[in-house]
C-alpha cells in the first residue's frame, strides 16, 4: 500500500516538473541568463557595434563615466535625466488625489457608471504611440492649447515655439500628459476598492451617530490605505521607468530639458553604440526604483501598526 502511494507521489512530482519545464526553460534563457549577463556587462567595455567577443573588463569605469563626471557631457545628461525622473515621480502626488476624487464621484452617481468608467479607461487602452502624437499636436505652436489661450485673451502665455519646444515649458507640458495617462490605472483600483465597502456599514455607523469624518476615517480609509500604497509604488515604477511618452514627444529635447534615464539608456546603447555604459545606467535606475519601493512599503506598513 505504502509503496503504491509513493509511486503515485513520484508520478505526480514528475508530471509537475514536466508541466513547469517549458516555462522554466524560457525563464532561464530569456530571463535569468539575460539578467546575470546584464549585471556582468555593466563592468565591461563594449565598443561601437562590436559584440561580446571584443569586450574588455573595465571595472567600475562605466559607472564613473556617468556618475562621477569622467565623461562630462554624459554625466550632466544623466544628472538632468535623474532630476527629470524625480519631477515625474513628484507628479504622482497629483495623480493620486485626482484618481481618488474621480473614483469617489463615480461611486456616488446612480446612472451611467459603466459608460463613464469605459470612457475614463480609454487613455490607458490606447496605444502610446498614437496618443502621444496627438498630445504633441495639441502642444504645437499652432496647436489647440495655444489657440485656446489666444481665444480667451491670455496671449502672453502662448508658447511661441510650441509647449514642447521651449526650455521652461517642455517638462511641465510632458508631465501634464503623463498625469493624464496615469489617472485611469489608479482610478480603477480605487473604484474597485470602494465597491467592496458594504453600504450597510455606513448606515450602521450613522445610526451610532458617526459624523462624515468618522465614517471616512473608520470605514473608508482602512480600505483605501493599502490601495494608496500600491498606487504609490506603481507611480514610482512608472516615473522612474518612463520611456514611451518622452521618446514619442521630445526624445529628451530641447537640450536635455525632458531627458529621462531610460531614453538616455536607449540613445547611449542603440544610437551611440556604447552598450556597457548604457547597461550600467539601466541598472542604476533599477536599483533606485527597487530601494525606493522597499522604503515606501516599509514606511507605510509601519504606520498601519
Amino acid at each position, binding site marked *: 500500500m505504502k509503496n503504491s502511494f509513493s509511486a503515485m507521489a513520484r508520478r*505526480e512530482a514528475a*508530471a509537475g516538473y514536466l508541466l513547469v519545464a517549458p516555462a522554466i526553460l524560457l*525563464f532561464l534563457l530569456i*530571463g535569468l541568463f*539575460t539578467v546575470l*549577463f546584464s549585471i556582468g556587462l555593466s563592468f565591461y567595455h563594449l565598443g561601437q557595434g562590436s559584440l561580446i567577443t571584443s569586450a574588455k573588463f573595465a571595472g567600475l569605469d562605466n559607472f564613473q563615466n556617468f556618475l562621477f563626471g569622467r565623461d562630462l557631457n554624459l554625466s550632466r545628461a544623466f544628472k538632468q535625466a535623474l532630476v527629470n525622473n524625480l519631477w515625474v515621480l513628484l507628479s504622482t502626488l497629483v495623480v493620486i488625489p485626482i484618481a481618488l476624487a474621480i473614483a469617489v464621484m463615480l461611486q456616488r452617481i446612480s446612472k451611467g457608471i459603466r459608460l463613464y468608467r469605459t470612457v475614463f479607461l480609454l487613455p490607458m487602452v490606447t496605444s502610446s504611440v498614437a496618443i502621444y*502624437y496627438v498630445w504633441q499636436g495639441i502642444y504645437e505652436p499652432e496647436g489647440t492649447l495655444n489657440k485656446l489661450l489666444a481665444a480667451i485673451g491670455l496671449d502672453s502665455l502662448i508658447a511661441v515655439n510650441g509647449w514642447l519646444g521651449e526650455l521652461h515649458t517642455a517638462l511641465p507640458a510632458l508631465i501634464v500628459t503623463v498625469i493624464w495617462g496615469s489617472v485611469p490605472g489608479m482610478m480603477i483600483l480605487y473604484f474597485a476598492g470602494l465597491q467592496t465597502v458594504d453600504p450597510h456599514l455606513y448606515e450602521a455607523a450613522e445610526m451610532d451617530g458617526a459624523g462624515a469624518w468618522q465614517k471616512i476615517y473608520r470605514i473608508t480609509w482602512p480600505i483605501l490605505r493599502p490601495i494608496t500604497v500600491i498606487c504609490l509604488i506603481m507611480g514610482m515604477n512608472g516615473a522612474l521607468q518612463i520611456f514611451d511618452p518622452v521618446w514619442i514627444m521630445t526624445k529628451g529635447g530641447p537640450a536635455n530639458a525632458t531627458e529621462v534615464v531610460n531614453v538616455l539608456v536607449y540613445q547611449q546603447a542603440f544610437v551611440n553604440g556604447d552598450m556597457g555604459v548604457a547597461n550600467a545606467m539601466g541598472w542604476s*535606475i533599477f536599483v533606485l526604483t*527597487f530601494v525606493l519601493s522597499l522604503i515606501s512599503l516599509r514606511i507605510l506598513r509601519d504606520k498601519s501598526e
Partner: protein
Amino acid sequence: MKPSAIRKIPLYAVLTVWGALCLYPLLWMIGASLKDPMDVMSSYSLLPNGVWHWDTYVDVWNKMKFFHYFLNSVNVTFFTILGINVLFTMAGFAFAKLRFPGSNMLFLGFLGMMFVPGITVMVPLYLTEHSLGLLNTHLGLILPMVNGSAPMALFLFRNYFRTIPHELYETAKLEGAGILRILYRIYIPLAIPAIATITIMNFLGSWNSLVLPMVLLNSQHLYTLPLAVMLLDTGVFRQWNVLMAGSLITIVPVILCFFLLQKYFIQGLTSGAIKS
C-alpha cells in the same frame, strides 16, 4: 427632480468634464485623419472643413503598407497570447494542484521576476538574442514578451485553479485520467474567465509594445504597427492627417477588444492589487 438627484448634478458635471478630457485626443485623432493636411492645425473644429478625406486611409493601408504591418502585429500578438496561455496554464496548474519538491521556491522565483523591469535588461537582451540568432525575428520578440508576462499569468492561473474544488481532481485521478487529460478536459474549460483576463491584458501589452520591437527589430518589413506609425512621423513638416490615420488604424483593434472584454480587463487590473 428629487432633491438627491439635484445634489448629484455637480458630480455629473465634473465627471463629464474629465470624460471630455479623456475623449478629446481620440476625437482629435479621428478629425485630423480626415482633414486636408493644410487644414489640421488651422481650425478648432474637430470635423474637417469641406471634403472628408477617406482616401488618406486607403493610402496608408496600401501605399504605406499598413496592411502588411497590421499582419505583423497580428502575428506577434497572436503567438504571444497563445504562448502565454499554453505555458502558464500548464505551470499554473502544476503549482496549484501537484506536489513536487521545490514548487514553492520556483513559484516565488517567477514572481520575483516582476521586479526586474523589461527596460533595464534591453541591452543584454539585445546581445543575448544576437548570439542566439533570434535578433530581428518575430520569434525573438515573442519569447521575451511571453517570459515577461510570467509573474502575472502564473499568479492568476495558480490562484484560479486553487479555487476549483480539489475533489474534482481526486475523482478524475481515481477514475484513471492522466494529468494532462485532467488539465485540458476539466480545468481549462473551467478557467475560461482567467484565460480571458490574461488574453485581454496581454493583447493590449503586446499590441501596444514600443520599446521591445524598437530594440529587437531592425528590418522594416518585420515592423509592428507602433513602429510603422513612427515611420510616418516625418519630423518638422509632419503630415498630421497621414500620421493620425496610421495611429487610428493601430488603435481600432485594441479599442474593439477592450469594449468586448472590458469586464475581464478590469478584473486583470484589480485582481492582484486588491487581494494583496
